[in-house]
């Protein structure tokens, strides 16, 4: 790279800079027309956490592993009589599942530890609120995000396939 060559003539550096500005002026702008045009976000984007309620067994793993304990779970046990079974079964029923997005650090540990795939990332991000208390999303609200969850991207063929893919192939 040329060292101190521009120092010789005063004003040369300034003109060089203005040259860049001129060049950029003649090129199309980089502006994203955000509210009118939605940004294209990759499927892995950590925007909001969606809950597939049917998959949740209220095992509390996510709530325990959360680094700032922003997941609240309440559940009770119900006895289910299964016809033909010797004994009635116990089943966990989820009463409350809430994530406080004003505390959430968006690390994704809850999604990683969930053994039954009840939690998913969605790239959706437009859920700002006027009142911070409204950032506490209850299970209905978390369930609504499920519709926005994109399919995961295919893995690099050089690497190992995704867990889901290997599991699906085993079943076949």
């Amino acid at each position: 790279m040329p060292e101190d060559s521009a120092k010789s003539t005063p004003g040369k550096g300034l003109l060089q800079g203005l040259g860049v500005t001129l060049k950029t002026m003649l090129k199309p702008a980089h502006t994203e027309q955000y509210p009118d045009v939605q940004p294209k976000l990759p499927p892995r984007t950590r925007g909001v956490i969606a809950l597939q309620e049917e998959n949740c067994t209220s095992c509390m793993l996510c709530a325990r592993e959360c680094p700032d304990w922003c997941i609240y779970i309440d559940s009770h046990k119900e006895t289910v009589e299964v016809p033909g079974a010797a004994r009635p079964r116990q089943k966990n029923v989820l009463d409350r599942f809430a994530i406080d997005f004003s505390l959430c650090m968006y690390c994704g540990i809850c999604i990683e530890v969930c053994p039954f795939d009840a939690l998913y990332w969605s790239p959706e991000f437009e859920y700002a609120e006027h009142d911070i208390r409204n950032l506490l999303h209850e299970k209905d609200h978390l369930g609504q995000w499920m519709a926005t969850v994109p399919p995961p991207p295919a893995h690099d063929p050089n690497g190992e396939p995704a867990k889901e893919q290997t599991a699906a192939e085993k079943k076949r």
Partner: protein
Amino acid sequence: MVLNIGPQHPSTHGVLRLKLTVDGERVTACEPIIGYMHRGAEKLFEVRDYRQILVLANRHDWLSAFANELGVALAVERLMGIEVPERATWLRTGMAELNRVLNHLMFLGSYPLEIGAITPVFYAFREREKLQAVMEEAAGGRMHFMFNRVGGIKEEVPAGWTRRALETIAEVRAGMKDIAQLIRHNDIFLARTKGIGVLTAEAAAGYGASGPVARASGLDFDLRRDEPYLAYGELDVPVVTRTAGDCHARFECLLEQVYVSLDLAEQCLSKVDTLTGPVNTRLPKVVKAPEGHTYAWTESPLGVNGYYLVSRGEKTPWRLKLRTASYANVQALSTLLPGCLIADLVAILGSMFFVVGDIDK
């Protein structure tokens, strides 16, 4: 007269307070007062398991999240004796370099901004945006990547990611030319930075300064070359140094390191394409580091980051001490500022390239 700069001051990138003693326009003494952003990270580490620590470690220097995660992961892996798969190592190295570019671009934009040149920040952020998109595609985050795990990285990168990343690297390299042309030889910029805030190599070494700040003073020290970790041992890492030690030298170091990092990232990602295999290791359900202690240090974008991990065999560390680059670098301000004019203060402050979260932890 005693003059307080900060804690709320736009050029401090956070809340750093400088207690200056001034004689007219000249600074006679300077005492950096830190701690306004202390979040007790080290104490929190003691009550978090190793995966949760990555989330927190990520955030002390919010501009080099990947490098921070990496340090913790390396320390834990060393203590547990985990061998990281080759593919993961090369991916980590490549992404660490991309993170370095992201960090440097931030300062390349904000530093001219602080001394009155508004335009470069738009060019720097234009390039940053492209790289952030690349990182987001793989990791899901634009700043706090959370992509490292003990034993490797979180998951395999999406198909075609390395190709897109390599294309972006080429684009950013072309865009860097604009930033360099825009400001590097600008007469006003030179007048504001040449010969201002000279840090001698002795002072830099004495304060434990590292990274681009120390290398601009002629301190030829880079852990990537001198004590290689990750895949750096197999790479030829050119170390960018200057001897002037002034604000302009620090800026130039940063600028040239971007080119070096882009080249390194390119080599790493090309290498990744030739490797197959897993990117993480199977871990026990509860990750416990065996009793013992280790010190891992890495060349973070802003300088040397050290992680002293003491474990008593629990699933949380007994102590995890952070040695952060910014903390050592701002200490040098107390010798750098006395004698300078108030008008040069912001130029010097900005050229020390620190993140307050990294100082206060």
